[in-house]
């Protein structure tokens, strides 16, 4: 087995550990008094965690020269999508009894649901076009333009989290700060040329 293959297994193992705990604790009835809420919240948080890890790949490559990391970026993004799917399915089935009219009404009436839903739907094209075949079909330039959608997805995700808490903003704030750092890192090189005096 080569190293890339092994590292993918290593990432998968760690990525699935939270789900393993959720399943194991759920099976023995240890998810707390409100297991649905706990499952919903944990899968939501894991979606954000994987979005932020995915967004960390480029800064880590550039700062530390860990160029090999890019081989695992697709997988990290797909784990974000995976936990996002679990999150949405839990909400749809247990909170809304899978009633499409109820879900539609919720989206219209509750901005935080609309925002979370938008973030999820933006993830779908990214997950679909994550394959090598799609990169070729779209062409590298178009493909990376499309995948810039991860920035609004992550921003909407953090806002969605922020809007559901009552006063305990610690974790939404933490996610927001990390996201802000990751976004600012990308803005800095773009700002530099404009700051330099023109030479003609």
């Amino acid at each position, binding site marked *: 087995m080569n190293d890339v293959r*092994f590292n993918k*297994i*290593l990432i998968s*193992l*760690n990525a699935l*550990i*939270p789900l393993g*705990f959720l399943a194991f*604790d759920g099976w023995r009835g*240890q998810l*707390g*008094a*409100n297991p*649905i*809420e*706990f499952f919903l919240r*944990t899968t939501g948080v894991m979606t954000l965690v994987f979005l932020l890890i995915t967004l960390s790949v480029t800064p880590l490559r550039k700062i530390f020269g860990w160029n090999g990391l890019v081989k695992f970026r697709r997988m990290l993004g797909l784990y974000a999508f995976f936990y996002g799917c679990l999150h949405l399915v839990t909400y749809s089935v*247990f*909170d809304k*009894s899978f009633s499409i009219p109820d879900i539609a009404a*919720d989206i219209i*009436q*509750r*901005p*935080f649901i609309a925002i979370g839903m938008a973030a999820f739907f933006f993830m779908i094209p990214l997950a679909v076009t994550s394959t090598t075949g799609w990169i070729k079909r779209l062409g590298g330039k178009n493909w990376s333009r499309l995948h810039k959608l991860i920035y609004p997805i992550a921003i909407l995700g953090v806002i969605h989290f922020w*809007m*559901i808490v*009552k*006063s*305990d*903003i*610690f974790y939404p704030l933490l996610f927001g700060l990390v996201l802000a750092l990751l976004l600012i890192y990308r803005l800095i090189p773009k700002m530099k040329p404009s700051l330099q005096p023109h030479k003609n």
Partner: protein
Amino acid sequence: MSKNEVKSSEITPESLYLNRRNFIRAGLLAGTGIVTGLGYRFFNPPPPGEVATTEISNVTQSTAPQTLEKPNTLAEITNYNNYYEFSTTKTAVAGKVANFITRPWTVEVDGMVQKPRVFDIDELLKFDQEERIYRFRCVEAWSMVIPWVGFPLKNLLDLVEPQGTAKYVAFHTYYGGKSSNQDVKLPPGPNGMQSSFSAGIDFPYVEGLRLDEAMHPLTILATGLYGKQMPNQNGAPIRLIVPWKYGFKSIKSIVKITLTDREPPTTWNLAGPEEYGFFSNVNPEVNHPRWSQASERRIGELAMRPTEMFNGYGEQVASLYEGMDLKKYF
């Protein structure tokens, strides 16, 4: 043979090389897996065991109609608590209250009363206690059925004789033991409680009722649940229960009750005036600005169930609000 050449005998055999690589890989899988697992458990600790408190001996027959719904288990009631002075995570409160000291404890009653008085908790525990099995509906759209033990708030207010000018009752939660009144005896702070900054709301927690709501026979001061003294996480040693209002109105660990002629400030109303009104009656038709109040999740059930007007106590309390626009006075 030149010096730089490696003797074939010195080359690590491929099998040994692969063995070592497999060994490192196994170590990586186990090592990172353990770190991730510990990280998960750090953020999601398992619930602590059940709490044991003293039996309440003087429990008599209830004077109010009881719900026939099945009460939630003691484990559910004591491991899912909104008590922001200890933690903003409902499942974490139980683990943080073990060292909360509730003796000595007094409840000071002052303001517009004929006979202001400081009650010792042991005096209050000698009042006739009765079991009240009530539905409890949180503003966060979850609910429980809880077998409280306590006595009508009216029994205490009658002793201090409210003046004719009194229109409201204000309540204070314990937050440190300081008081200008010599008779007040409370444990010194912080007593395990966190700062307002960490919780995101102001302390001490304050709540209020209109006088007629406070005198209503369903409104009780609860001193315990399941026949035993109140567990710390549920608001020991004494708390308010107003079953037709959202749970945050039912203020915990009370140290002061003040009769007044003005609507008193209330903590969640101060934190979000558009989101939490003074009345905060359970009302499926008035949604929280950010989420629906039409349905609720009964703890222990998987699907949501519809929320009832006044939490199902309309027959007893609707007359208190006759002629009021409950969308305006939410």
